[in-house]
């Protein structure tokens, strides 16, 4: 009884601390959400979290978008780019990872090292050559530079993640599949892909989130506002040299958080599994 009480009190304190830390971490997002309901003149002049007067006008204004482009347009564009990236990335990265994890080919280790180096290469180094190249292809102001490179499995990080996972799948399964008459492609499709589901989900999730949040690449490659993705659209509410519509920006930021949020919640179980199983083996 006494012990129970002790446990309970210590549990209680742990919870208090965890909730306090959680609150500190969540504060910026809470501030964002609450500010989106504040009047424009209160956003920066009123320090308290709770709005003095609640208004939905930012959501209405923000949804109407900016410079004649409704905000739903940016969402549509972002969904298109993100979903295409997910599909392409999952297929290409898993194929490359399968090759590295299971198949035997010449200079495998060197190729693997080069692939690992590409993770460590800062993206800024490749920006200018990439821009020049895509410019010569005539791909500026299209979505090609954002999607096509992913067909070639350029995200080394995901390849690495998948390789680690595939290495953890027992080779006995492959052997029995070979005995049953499967070739490498069938093993990839029937054995590895279903078993690597958690890692594939992690890849898909991260690709989605990173593409969804990406500001720099769309900024560089897209010129026409009709083609802008959400991060560019959000930035358009702000004008650091003049009038910024912070309220609408906050409101639409909240809206654009929703897809990531839902995705994360529904995929959470797979996601954690994917991370832990690859992490331990790594």
């Amino acid at each position, binding site marked *: 009884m006494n012990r129970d009480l002790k446990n309970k009190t210590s549990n209680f304190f742990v919870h208090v601390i965890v909730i306090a830390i959680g609150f500190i971490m969540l504060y910026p997002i809470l501030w964002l959400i609450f500010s989106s309901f504040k009047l*424009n*003149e209160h*956003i*920066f*002049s009123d*320090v308290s979290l709770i709005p003095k007067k609640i208004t939905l006008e930012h959501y209405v204004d923000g949804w109407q978008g*900016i*410079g*004649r482009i409704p905000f739903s347009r940016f969402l549509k564009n972002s969904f298109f780019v993100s979903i295409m990236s997910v599909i392409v990335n999952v297929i290409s990265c898993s194929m490359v990872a399968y090759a590295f994890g299971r198949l035997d080919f*010449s*200079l495998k280790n*060197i190729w693997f090292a080069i692939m690992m180096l590409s993770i460590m290469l800062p993206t800024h180094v490749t920006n*200018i050559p990439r*821009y*020049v190249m895509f*410019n010569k292809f005539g791909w*500026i102001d299209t979505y090609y530079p954002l999607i096509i490179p992913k067909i070639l499995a350029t995200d080394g990080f995901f390849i690495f993640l998948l390789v680690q996972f595939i290495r953890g799948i027992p080779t006995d399964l492959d052997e029995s599949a070979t005995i049953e008459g499967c070739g490498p492609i069938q093993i990839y499709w029937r054995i590895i892909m279903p078993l690597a589901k958690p890692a594939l989900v992690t890849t898909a999730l991260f690709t989605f989130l990173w593409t969804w949040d990406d*500001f720099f690449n769309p*900024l*560089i490659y897209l*010129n*026409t*506002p009709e083609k*802008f993705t959400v991060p*560019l659209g959000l*930035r*358009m*509410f*702000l*004008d*650091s*040299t*003049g*009038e*910024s*519509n*912070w309220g*609408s920006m906050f409101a639409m930021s909240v809206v654009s958080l929703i897809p990531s949020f839902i995705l994360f919640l529904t995929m959470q179980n797979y996601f954690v599994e994917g991370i832990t199983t690859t992490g331990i083996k790594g």
Partner: protein
Amino acid sequence: MKKRIIALFVAVLLIFTFTACSNDSEAPDDTGADKSGNDENSKEPTDSGEDGEDVEISVTWWGSDTRHTITLDMIDAFEEKYPHIKVNPEYGSPDGYWDKLATRVAGGTAPDVIQFGGNYPDYVDKGALLPLNDFVGKEIDLEQFDQDVVDAGTMDGNLYGICLGTNMLTLVYNKDLIERVGGELPPETWTWEEMEKWAEGLAEKMDSGYFPMSDNSKSQTNYLGYFLRQRGNSIYRDGEVAFEEQDIVDWINLWEGFREKGLVPDAETASAYPETGPDTSLFVEGKTALILIYSNQVRAYQDAMEDELSLTLLPKGEETAAWIMPSQYMTVYSKTEHPNEAATFINFMVNDPEATSILGNERGVSSSAEVRELLAESSSPVDTKVYEYFNVATKDVKPMDPNLPNDQEFNDTFKLILEKVAFGQIDAEEGGKQVYELANDLVEKAGRD
């Protein structure tokens, strides 16, 4: 195995040489294009715009939602009047605008018409802008423009930028806040001493955490420029740094004096609120009563606050120092295929009655006397205050001095140096020395490029 590795390296090497070769063969093409861009200087404007031939031009600008909406409306009006010209608007926020423009100029894909701020000379140096001299009197009509403003868009005898509006520095005070604490409102004009005395009087009545003035010693270098011009100097004039170390030391001492007396926020608060816009302003939070901003920002500040704002002149000194500042320019890209249409578009934007009434003074007060009169008839209370301020302030002005080359770097580093002084890491003399050296370095750096 070793042999294989060697073979691989040879293969890779070969690939690199091949790609290098193919680059070489393309290189003359590129430089050829470059040259034709620069040759436009001497060339008569090409006759690509014959009647009836449909052309497309792209126009880029940065701004807020308001600006996007009115500019798009203006473009509609333009397309109606010139049906053979289709305009592709490319707009965005100022964050990222310059990164993107620099990339596009480097890639040779910049839009035909580009909006610039005071930094257009950097792009003239890169050969990215087309001189507009040949269009003046034909496509572009500058009859109604103030000569000062035309000059501001001119560099080395070539006109590059057509001014879209003008700004002035202004002191803005929070009328309601001052009245609440029972202080005196600032007079219409004052000297530096009178301003300090006014602030001291107000400081006595204010609670702790409130200050009479925002720290504008470093929020932008134009206030310093104003101070220097009152002494007959300037930040940059005639291609060289036009101030002395002692000038900066005096500027620093002036503000550190304010800080000691509690007239401006302490160093920590001041660095947390850099006063670069309404979102980083202690003034907007209602904690300070006086701030220096541009006249075109007044409206944004008023919109962000409940208290009523009013405008007053900057402190007077020995010499006239105020200047009218072109806010933005429209320029034409040097590699444009349709220079005539681009020039026509710019002219429509600054002169056409329909266009100017759509655009209003969102990009600053118009440089054309005719347009100003037209706009004054219908304006909001805040705008009226700005117009009134303009009418008084423009009576006592001198032509503006050009920006220091690499102006952005000067602003940023200047801010860091003054912050060091405010935090007591270096003294005013050392700060003055560093700023002086910084300015000279930047001028020298620009000369080298």
